[in-house]
C-alpha cells in the first residue's frame, strides 16, 4: 500500500465538510512531504499520525458545534412559524367559540356576568390575533407588542374565567393554554439561540 493511500485512509478522521474543502490540498502537501522525507522511517509516520491526532478531533468538535447551531436555528424558525399559526388559529377559534357560546346562552336567560365573560373572551381572542399579526412584523418592536398582547390576552381570559366559571374546555384551552405556550415560545428560543436571531 502506498504512503498516499495510507494517508487517504487517515484523512477519514476529519469531518466530511473539511475533507471536501481541503483534502486535495492536504494530499498535495503530503506528497511534497513524501518527496523530501524518507517515508519508510518510523519517525515520519509518527509525525503524520501525530498531526492527524492533534488536529482531527478539534475539527470534528467544531463541525459538530456548527451542526448543532444550524439545528437550533431551524428549530427556532419552526417554533416561530408554529407560534404564529397557533396564535392566528387561536384568535379565530376563540372568537368563533365565543359566538357559539353567545348564541347558546341567548336561547336561555343570560346573566350579566356571563355576558361580560363572553365579551372578555372575544377581547382575549382579538388580542391573540393582534399578537399573531405583530409576530409577522419580524422586528424587535413587533416581538415586544406580541408579548404584551399575549400577556394581556392571558390576563383577560383569567378574569373571564373567574367571572363565569362554566366556560367550555375549548375556551379555557384556547384562552389560557395558547397564551402560555406562546409566551414560552416567544421567550425561550430568544435566549437559546447563539445568534440571537429573531
Amino acid at each position, binding site marked *: 500500500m502506498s504512503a498516499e493511500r495510507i494517508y487517504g485512509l487517515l484523512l477519514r478522521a476529519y469531518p466530511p465538510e473539511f475533507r471536501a474543502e481541503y483534502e486535495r490540498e492536504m494530499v498535495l*502537501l503530503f506528497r511534497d512531504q513524501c518527496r523530501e522525507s524518507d517515508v519508510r522511517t518510523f519517525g515520519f509516520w509518527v509525525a503524520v499520525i501525530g498531526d492527524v491526532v492533534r488536529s*482531527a478531533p*478539534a*475539527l470534528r468538535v467544531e463541525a459538530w458545534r456548527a451542526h448543532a447551531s444550524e439545528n437550533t436555528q431551524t428549530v427556532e424558525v419552526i417554533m416561530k412559524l408554529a407560534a404564529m399559526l397557533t396564535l392566528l388559529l387561536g384568535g379565530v377559534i376563540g372568537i368563533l367559540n365565543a359566538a357559539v357560546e353567545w348564541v347558546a346562552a341567548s336561547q336561555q336567560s343570560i346573566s350579566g356576568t356571563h355576558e361580560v365573560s363572553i365579551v372578555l373572551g372575544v377581547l382575549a381572542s382579538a388580542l391573540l390575533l393582534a399578537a399573531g399579526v405583530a409576530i409577522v412584523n419580524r422586528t424587535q418592536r413587533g416581538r415586544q407588542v406580541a408579548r404584551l398582547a399575549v400577556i394581556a390576552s392571558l390576563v383577560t381570559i383569567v378574569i373571564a374565567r373567574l367571572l363565569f366559571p362554566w366556560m367550555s374546555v375549548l375556551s379555557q384551552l384556547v384562552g389560557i393554554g395558547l397564551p402560555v405556550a406562546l409566551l414560552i415560545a416567544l421567550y425561550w428560543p430568544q435566549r437559546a439561540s447563539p445568534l440571537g436571531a429573531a
Partner: protein
Amino acid sequence: MITISTIDIQEGAIGTKRQTGRPPETYLPLPPATFHILLALADEELHGYAIMKGVAARSEGTVRLGPGTLYGTLKRLLEAGLVEEGGERADPERGDERRRYYRLTQLGLCVARAEARRLDAMVRAARRKKLIGVRPA
C-alpha cells in the same frame, strides 16, 4: 459599522462566530502556530506547502506544521476573516499541480501586528529582568 468575523482562542484552537467591530487586541494571545502562519503571509501570498516550509525555516525547525494542523488553522483564519484565498495557480518554482494561495486581510495584518507588539513588550520585560540579553557568568 463594519461587519467582521471574530475568533476565540482557547488552548491553541480558534473558534469562529460572527460578531461586529471587535478590536484586534481582543484576539490575543494567538497560538504559536497561528502567529507563525500570519507571519508567513505578512508580505506575500503563499500556498500551503510554502507556508509550512516558511514556518519551519523561521522557527529553526521548532514549529513543524502537518497538513491537518496547517489547513485546520487556515480554515479557522478564513472563517474569522484574518486570511483570504488568493486564487489557484501552479507554483512557478515547483511547476506541478495548481495550488490554492492564501493572503492576509487588513484585519489579519492588524491582529498580527498586535500580537507582535505584545510579544515585543514581553521580550523587553524579560530583558529588563535580565532573563535574556546578558551573558551567563
